[in-house]
């Protein structure tokens, strides 16, 4: 088989959906049917083993998928790489990363719940990365299942040109099989795990519906194929391959969403989902991948996808396994051989490729190389998520992934010494694995602060520290990163003089401080005539910088300050670096309050997607939270409300929103800007601070 033929049979797909739609169960069934596993373990099964894809203990317990587990399988001569993605909104970075490296996706929907809030978020992400998808309507065996209602929702809420390529034989408890509208056969799934396929003629009772739906399918697909249109006009028999080809074209252009259905739990229809992935989702060759040329002002260049060309690969996920750090990688161009050397473009360092594996959840298989279009994992490579690996001489970087800013912080403290070490280990690992999870030590309190994308996001990591690292942790209240800044130009002239026996301390600094936009701190030396000797200038700067971490007013970091020094004095004996640092601190204190300091708070861009009937209440809730509504956008039955809300008002909002909208709305939040805190709020913060100072907490 030629290289191109091989590549045409590769599928890099993601499975994404709302939480509890059954995507992990679906993946488990894929693995079973493709002989990758030999027993099925349910997500919340009685055997207590949990699904293969949910490899973390916490995932197994909660029945949710937290980290994407990558795996591959083979189905009908096609190689399918699957990334199982988490469903909760707080973990969307995982979904985004998965979509970045994938060529296609299966959007799993619940036949009862339909298009839910997370389905909308995931769909938007797919749009952002132009990922073609097929839809699988799962849980057709459940009470209240109505796949056709879900198809309507796909059209109305997500604007998909969703067309069923199957219809169910019975629904709810009577779900017996599936009618394939392409082959016009009834498909039944026999055996304990539905692995024996029995093809029959379509039952008479369903023939009329099947013909009607087939006609709709052919009509919708004919837009993408002239040959098919001709066949329809001539009323000649439509070959299966022709219909499949037309649907495939439409799907790859993202103008057609083929809908398949069944029940993963009851093992019905799963083989047909795999068939659909082979038939309709693109191979790596059919996707145009771009990189940024760092030699040419980050111009985008197309990657060839050929294995003969120089290597370009992206590290899209890191995991700490029992054998060290595991780096998940997608090769876009060239190939990565065991023993090869390539360059980490971010650091410029050369790295030698050691062990290469293909992942199957937490089990692995050693391979010699990964070629363009494939996904694999490397051992012992020092990098962070999002790094580009390229051949020597290639100065390109993969388009950076959209990584949202962390929005919430929490202090954590170890209960004992052993826990402190465990926490350090855990944080080192988590921050490398997940760029939206960050940590630092507060200069003020000495506490370790973790920040992330939401309350649940932090909660899960803290829980993981407790379980996986046996760390005993005390957590603090979530807090907002306020900042102090000045509003007017103020001069200073400060002399630091101390004579307490022995060598004295002397230093005089004069100049002014002024507000500066879009810079944290600017220091300008305009001393002429050596009034402050050159060797003390850096000490002056150091002295000013030391005042910034904790503002003299409310003890928050000071930003947006420009310091200009233009005069001063020194003493041949008493002046020292320390004396000028102290003089700078004194000058800062002297001028700061005269420069009319104000407090700034982080403002978040909050986008809420809600069914239109709740939009009034949602806007009201934003208004109550000092939010400024920028606008609303109606798409079908959904209204997207864009607003700017102070972060301090957003704690606990997910719960409020859920109860206000019967759980049908969801929101995303990212940092927008810093704005001045209004007077009324400032008073409250001042009072809180006073209390804190008094109690010493």
């Amino acid at each position: 088989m030629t290289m191109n033929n091989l590549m045409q049979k590769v599928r890099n797909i993601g499975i994404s959906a709302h939480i509890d739609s059954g995507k992990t169960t679906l993946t488990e069934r894929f693995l079973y049917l493709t002989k990758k596993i030999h027993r099925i373990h349910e997500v919340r099964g009685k055997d207590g083993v949990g699904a293969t894809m949910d490899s973390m203990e916490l995932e197994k317990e909660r029945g949710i998928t937290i980290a994407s587990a990558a795996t591959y399988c083979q189905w009908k001569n096609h190689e399918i790489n699957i990334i199982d993605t988490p469903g909760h909104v707080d973990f969307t970075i995982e979904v985004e990363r998965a979509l970045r490296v994938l060529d296609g996706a299966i959007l799993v929907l619940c036949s009862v719940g339909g298009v839910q809030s997370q389905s909308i978020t995931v769909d938007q992400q797919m749009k952002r990365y132009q990922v073609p998808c097929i839809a699988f309507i799962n849980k057709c065996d459940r009470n209240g299942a109505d796949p056709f209602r879900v198809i309507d929702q796909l059209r109305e809420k997500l604007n998909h040109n969703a067309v069923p390529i199957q219809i169910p034989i019975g629904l709810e408890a009577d779900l017996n099989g599936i009618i394939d509208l392409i082959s016009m056969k009834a498909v039944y799934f026999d055996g304990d795990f539905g692995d024996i396929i029995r093809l029959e003629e379509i039952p008479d009772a369903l023939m009329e519906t099947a013909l009607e739906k087939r006609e709709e399918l052919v009509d919708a697909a004919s837009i993408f194929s002239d040959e098919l249109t001709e066949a329809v006009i001539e009323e000649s028999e439509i070959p299966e391959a022709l219909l499949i080809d037309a649907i495939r074209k439409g799907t790859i252009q993202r103008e057609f969403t083929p809908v398949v259905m069944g029940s993963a739990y009851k093992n019905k229809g799963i083989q047909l989902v795999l068939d659909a992935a082979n038939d309709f989702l693109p191979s790596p060759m059919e996707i145009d991948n771009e990189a940024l040329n760092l030699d040419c002002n980050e111009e985008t260049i197309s990657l060839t996808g050929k294995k003969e060309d120089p290597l370009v690969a992206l590290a899209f996920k890191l995991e700490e396994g029992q054998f060290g750090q595991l780096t998940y990688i997608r090769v876009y161009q060239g190939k990565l051989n065991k023993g090869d050397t390539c360059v980490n473009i971010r650091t410029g360092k050369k790295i030698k490729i050691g062990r290469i594996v293909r992942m199957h959840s937490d089990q692995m298989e050693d391979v010699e190389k990964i070629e363009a279009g494939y996904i694999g994992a490397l051992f012992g490579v020092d990098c962070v998520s999002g790094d580009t690996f390229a051949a020597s001489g290639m100065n390109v970087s993969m388009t950076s992934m959209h990584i949202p800013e962390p929005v919430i912080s929490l202090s954590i403290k170890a209960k004992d010494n052993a826990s402190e070490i465990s926490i350090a280990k855990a944080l080192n690992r988590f921050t490398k694995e997940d760029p939206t999870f960050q940590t630092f030590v507060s200069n003020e309190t000495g506490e370790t602060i973790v920040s992330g994308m939401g309350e649940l996001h932090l909660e899960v990591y803290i829980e993981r520290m407790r379980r996986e690292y046996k760390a005993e942790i005390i957590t603090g209240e979530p807090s907002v990163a306020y900042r102090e800044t000045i509003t007017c130009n103020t001069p200073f002239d400060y002399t630091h003089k101390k004579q307490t026996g022995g060598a004295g301390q002397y230093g005089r600094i004069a100049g002014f401080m002024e507000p500066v936009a879009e810079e944290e701190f600017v220091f300008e030396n305009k001393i002429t005539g050596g009034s402050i000797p050159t060797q003390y200038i850096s000490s002056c700067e150091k002295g000013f910088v030391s005042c910034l971490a904790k503002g003299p007013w409310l003890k928050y970091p000071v930003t947006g300050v420009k310091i200009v020094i233009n005069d001063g004095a020194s003493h041949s004996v008493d002046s020292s670096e320390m004396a000028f640092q102290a003089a700078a601190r004194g000058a800062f204190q002297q001028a700061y309050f005269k420069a009319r300091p104000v407090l700034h708070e982080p403002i978040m861009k909050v986008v809420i997607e809600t069914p239109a009937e709740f939009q009034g209440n949602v806007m009201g809730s934003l208004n109550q939270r000092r939010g400024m509504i920028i606008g609303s956008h109606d798409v079908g039955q959904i209204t997207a409300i864009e607003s700017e809300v102070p972060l301090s008002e957003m704690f606990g909002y997910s719960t409020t929103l859920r109860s206000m909208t019967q759980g049908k709305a969801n929101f995303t939040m990212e940092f927008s800007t810093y704005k001045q805190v209004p007077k009324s709020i400032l008073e409250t913060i001042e009072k809180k601070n006073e209390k804190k100072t008094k109690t010493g907490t």
Partner: protein
Amino acid sequence: MLKKQLILRDPLSFLGCETDETEIKGNFGAVTSRAGVGKTAFLVQIAISSLLKDKNVLHISIQDPVDKVNLWYKELFLNLTHNQDAKESKQLWETLLAKRFIMTFETEGFNVSKLIARIDELSSQNIFVPHLIIVDGLSLDISIQSELLQLKEYAIKNNFTTWFSMRTHRHQSEDPVTLLQQLDGNNSSLFNMVIQLVPHKDQIQVKRLPLTGECNDRPPLLIDPATMMIKETINK
């Protein structure tokens, strides 16, 4: 200070529209031109002028997303405050934002009843009470005659002015005023002001079209296509 300076650059006053005329509650105005000449930019300038006069503006866009509409405002405000103190301009912009609300709809998802329900909801919760409504991208044809009448009635009752964009086509022989009058069964009380944008050499000419019985002897204005700002008046 800056605010006062900018108010003086109200595009409607340049065109000879009297203040009471543009602020009569329930009045409808239309900015008409062929596609791509600058209707949205002109409407946004009308909106910015109203915002500067402390009026609340509801901008309704059919098709364009919120971000794109927001960008129009940002760009035109930047052009308007070009060469002014950056800090003062930024502060002014912040105050204007609080008085503006953008609502966008897809073509098939928009109807006046829905809009009225939305405005009622915003007003009743005291979230936003519009004084001026900009409707951009709605196809003004006879099929929406009854909806326009419904909106007019609502506008009179709720004291706001409405400006529409109206796209004309090469094949249309009627002038925009006739087309608008047809919307109201030729009794010409639906629209009170009509402004036409016409490409003129490498610039855009803006003129107020006379409605029945009106006489407009003001010279047309010119818009700089690069900035979409009013440039000068053409001497007759």
